């Protein structure tokens, strides 16, 4: 089997989620990496991809139409290549989730979403019902289209490969959509999905200022990423890209500290694979304590500043 992996990149480097996807792909077959984007940055990313252990070949498609990864433009590029491949894999990021089903439908293939294990050439495990069940599914399609949960696979090594880079061209702009802008959260902090420690705040944090005053100093002290429950995001304490859960980001850090979060199943879906979970909640019956390794029943407005001070 030969597998095509769409590599996501930023500022000339390959994103960590794509490194995990390459590991998953290598369990299925020989890995070819597709790098699409505009000019120099994409070329740098292709050079980086060629060095990744396990990558046998890099395909580079440069076109201004590929710069923003619009699904309408990227999907035809991928489907055009799939004649030569048995499987297409991409990370289950917002971009991968946007593109993959478009590829699958064009190939008349039923996509397998968010896999957490490769159990055979065409057999995969994936969480359903907010992670309350793990389904093992087997595909009967002639080609596979798969999105990969990054936290479930190790990252491929950045060095060790020496793939060739082939320039290719696609159909460019499909003329259906255009990129207008991105309002990105500026943060010096580690990336939420790959951080070793995550400090998350919930509805109990009251408002944006309080969230900042209570959660940020603890996160700073620990060199941690900041996360949030849906309730905290809905209430405007922090922006959407911090939401952890079934419909937000999936994280699995070494240490997850949940502050003033009740532990709804939709939140647990995003963090219950963390190595150690610490919960601080004033309600001793909060469901979060049922999965926490270390629980502290306390008012967070006393406990968190004290903790920050004593670490």
């Amino acid at each position, binding site marked *: 089997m030969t597998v095509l992996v769409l590599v996501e990149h930023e500022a000339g480097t390959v994103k960590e989620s794509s490194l995990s996807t390459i590991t998953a792909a290598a369990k299925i077959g020989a890995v070819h990496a597709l790098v699409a984007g505009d000019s120099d940055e994409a070329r740098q990313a292709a050079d980086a991809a060629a060095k990744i252990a396990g990558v046998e070949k890099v395909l580079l498609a440069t076109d201004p139409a590929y710069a923003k990864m619009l699904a309408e433009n990227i999907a035809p590029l991928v489907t055009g290549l799939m004649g030569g491949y048995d499987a297409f894999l991409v990370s289950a990021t917002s971009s991968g989730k946007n593109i993959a089903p478009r590829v699958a*439908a064009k190939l008349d293939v039923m996509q397998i979403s968010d896999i957490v294990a490769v159990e055979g050439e065409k057999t995969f495990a994936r969480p359903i019902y907010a992670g309350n069940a793990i389904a093992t599914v087997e595909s009967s399609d002639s080609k596979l289209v798969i999105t990969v949960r990054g936290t479930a696979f190790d990252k491929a090594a950045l060095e060790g490969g020496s793939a060739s880079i082939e320039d290719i061209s696609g159909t460019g702009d499909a003329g259906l959509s255009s*990129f207008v802008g991105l309002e990105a959260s500026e943060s010096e902090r580690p990336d939420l999905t790959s951080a070793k420690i995550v400090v998350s705040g919930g509805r109990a944090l009251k408002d944006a200022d309080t969230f900042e005053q209570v959660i940020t100093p603890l996160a700073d002290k620990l060199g941690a990423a900041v996360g949030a429950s849906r309730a905290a995001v809905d209430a405007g304490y922090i922006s959407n890209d911090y939401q952890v859960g079934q419909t937000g980001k999936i994280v699995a850090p070494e240490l997850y500290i949940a502050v003033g979060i009740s532990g709804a199943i939709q939140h647990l879906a995003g963090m219950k694979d963390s190595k150690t979970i610490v919960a601080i909640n004033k309600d001793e019956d909060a469901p979060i304590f049922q999965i926490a390794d270390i629980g502290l029943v306390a008012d967070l407005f006393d406990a968190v500043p004290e903790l920050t001070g004593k670490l």
Partner: protein
Amino acid sequence: MKILVPVKRVIDYNVKPRVKPDGSGVDIANVKMSMNPFDEIAVEEAVRLKEAGKAEEVVAVSIGVPKAKDVLRTALAMGADRAILIQTEAEVEPLAVAKILKEVVAQEEPGLVILGKQAIDDDSNQTGQMLAALLDRPQGTFASKIELDDDSVTVIREVDDGLETVKLSLPAIVTADLRLNEPRYASLPNIMKAKKKPMDEKTPEDYGVDISPRLKTLKVAEPPLRQAGEKVGSVDELVAKLKALGVNA
């Protein structure tokens, strides 16, 4: 213009799903079923566009068992004008759902299709994108804001880095994220009125779509169970535990 809203009947989000002892699936017998929460948001958005004078008609469609009529009635009570039930006892995968919806779109010719971004049972997050692909139309997935103009729609999307804005030509496909709006509760008078609104009944065969599954579920298992750990009595104890784990700050 007309707006089409596909809605799915799923396990209620408050129910904790249980895996069947024989590993064949999740037990949905006798559990509360509701409209997929993202689809409530999709219906709400369509109804608001109609109330704002930007759309003339809202049509809700569901593919599923006869009981899926309940979620269609909810959509009608929220303000949809009519409903289509495409009845089947089979489990229909997103690709087949998208193929059926493509045929519905061919008949109804909506300017906009608004779906949920994912169904909370299977969590596939595919159907809208697949429908867009089959129709060769643009897609605005994970929408947190929609602005409809005469020949285009501007969609603000919740993406991993923040909020992305794209402009799509019409007709287009949009999938709703959590913060697009807060769906209304249907009032009692509207629930009564909904009973008189038209509901068409069809089958997948009426649309000539083969819904045979491509994926076979070999087994469904409980995830590894996490045990509750211990509670500590003070911040000092917590600090000691964290230090023992090698956390040094």
